[in-house]
């Protein structure tokens, strides 16, 4: 059955050797240039970075391990609430350790839920992840005295990073902060994907029966990558909480889970850099469309989604790969 998650055969050789291809510098150069070229757009830039990080975490489990989940926002939200409550209730305002705590909390939730849920697949897994995420959201609402419930968690006041770089109105410091965190997370993701462990995930995705047959510990591997992805999603959530100094129940919501799924497929699943393109396009598209028509912008987003599925099955990076392959063939 034709799939939006094709074996990233073209991508793996480039990333597989842990040696950097020259084209990989491009997205980083673009991201690094934004504070100089578009200094008024750094708030939007922060949104893009958080979404890239979140989408990266989903790509690890969706694009590489083939786990389809509609509840990934639960992990993002756990990280967000962990970082938020750490500051608001415990008065611990140091940002970097805040992110570590966020990642750890999300990893814990990911480990426990993954251990139970990853024995299932298909529609059952989809619904289980969705229902679990909603249950977590309900829990957060029940604990409203701690989480702030629907109205949100107030009182988050993050200290300046290293005592110097505060969260200013133009978001300059936090953009750079987010970019560094993204880079670090990306290095980890890249390492995993290029390793034998990462290869075995692709194997599980492609032919799980065979993996069982050769004695690979399928469930253990899946739980491992799910936990790592959960930690990454939690860090993204923590970053979100620190940038906005505000967390509501929406951070665990079904709509966010859907959005990050869209981002990964839009950019191209199983390609890591697909998360960059998908996140940038989705966030910027939504932003521009909402300015154009505050009432009907959803139509535009839906249209892009439909068009992507109909004409760009492997996402935009897939198109890019086809294009380079086609150009390559044309050269003598």
């Amino acid at each position, binding site marked *: 059955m034709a799939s939006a998650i094709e074996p990233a055969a073209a991508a793996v050789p480039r990333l597989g050797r842990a040696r950097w291809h020259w084209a990989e510098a491009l997205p980083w150069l673009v991201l690094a240039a934004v504070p100089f070229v578009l200094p008024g757009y750094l708030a939007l830039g922060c949104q893009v970075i958080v979404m890239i990080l979140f989408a990266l975490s989903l790509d690890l489990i969706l694009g590489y391990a083939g786990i389809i989940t509609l509840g990934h926002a639960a992990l993002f939200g756990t990280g967000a609430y962990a970082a938020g409550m750490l500051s608001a209730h415990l008065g611990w305002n140091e940002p970097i350790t805040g992110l570590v705590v966020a990642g750890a909390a999300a990893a814990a939730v990911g480990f426990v839920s993954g251990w139970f849920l990853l024995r299932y697949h298909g529609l059952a897994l989809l619904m289980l992840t969705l*229902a679990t995420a909603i249950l977590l959201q*309900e829990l957060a609402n029940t604990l409203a005295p701690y989480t702030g419930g629907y109205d949100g968690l107030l009182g988050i006041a993050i200290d300046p990073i290293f005592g110097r770089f505060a969260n200013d109105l133009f978001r300059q410091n936090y953009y750079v902060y987010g970019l560094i965190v993204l880079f670090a997370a990306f290095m980890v993701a890249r390492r995993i994907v290029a390793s034998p462990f990462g290869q075995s995930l692709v194997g599980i995705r492609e032919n799980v029966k065979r993996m069982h047959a050769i004695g690979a510990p399928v469930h253990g591997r899946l739980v491992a990558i799910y936990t790592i992805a959960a930690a990454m999603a939690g860090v993204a959530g923590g970053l979100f909480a620190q940038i906005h100094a505000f967390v509501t129940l929406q951070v665990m919501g079904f709509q966010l889970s859907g959005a990050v799924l869209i981002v990964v497929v839009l950019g191209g699943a199983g390609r890591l850099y697909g998360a960059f393109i998908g996140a940038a396009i989705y966030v910027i598209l939504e932003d521009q469309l909402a300015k154009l028509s505050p009432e009907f912008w959803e139509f535009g987003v*839906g249209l892009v*989604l439909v068009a992507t599925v109909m004409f760009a099955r492997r996402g935009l990076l897939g198109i890019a790969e086809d294009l380079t392959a086609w150009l390559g063939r044309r050269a003598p």
Partner: protein
Amino acid sequence: MLSAAVSILFDGLAYAMILFIIAVGLSITMGLLNFVNLAHGVFAMAGGYATVTMMRAWEVPFLAALPIAFVVVGAASIVFERLLYAPLYRRSELDQVLMTIGFVFMAIAAFTYFWGPNPLGIEVPRYLKGQVDLGLREFPAYRLFMIAVGFGMILALWLVFERTLLGARIRAAVDNRRMAQSLGIDVGRLFTLTFAVGGGLAAVGGGLAVELIGLRPIFAIQYLVLFLIVVAVGGLGSIWGAFLAALLLGIIDTAGKYVWPAGGGFFIYAITVAALLIKPEGLYGKRD
């Protein structure tokens, strides 16, 4: 005590009927066509808007508006199916999920454009208002009506699927498509028909739901999770599965709200997780 139990049972049954009527179409299309149609809520919503428009603009009586909505939305879904869904049958579930979610977004914006963002309601006929005395106690008339429609529907569907040639053909196509085709059954035509019926049923459910939960353009996405749960817990492609799942979820949700209101949505989702952990293919689903 007994009175409370009877209340809960009755209320839960009525709520379950709404879930069933809307979700059964989704179960049929997902099971028979192997197609993940997250835009199913749009058909339900369209039925709601059709009903409201007919009653307000043309003063069509409620009981006539529902079957008309069935036909209109059913016919419209044929167009949808032929043009937009048929190319996706061979694609992966993820593709189908994303494409249909895209449709939902477009539909919400479109309905907002034509009907405005305001919630809309209807005035049901006098004989469906108030309470009906059934001897031991009184029951709200509209909910009795819904229970009647729900039971009538499952009976009709069962008859068609188990007792008619058409139903036999559909079941054959589900069990083994190639074999059915080799026997000369026009599978494509069957699928279109099934899809139309599924969409029409959703429309009726949507029309019935207006009185209970109102109507707004975001209906399609707001209640989507509930329909998916009924289908997943019941098992794909099973009418009885959808019925039992709706009953289970409806009654437990209602009982939970009566006994522990602060629990909120907890019960429905907890039951879903429990049911799927035990029987991931659903109550009446096929194990693969």
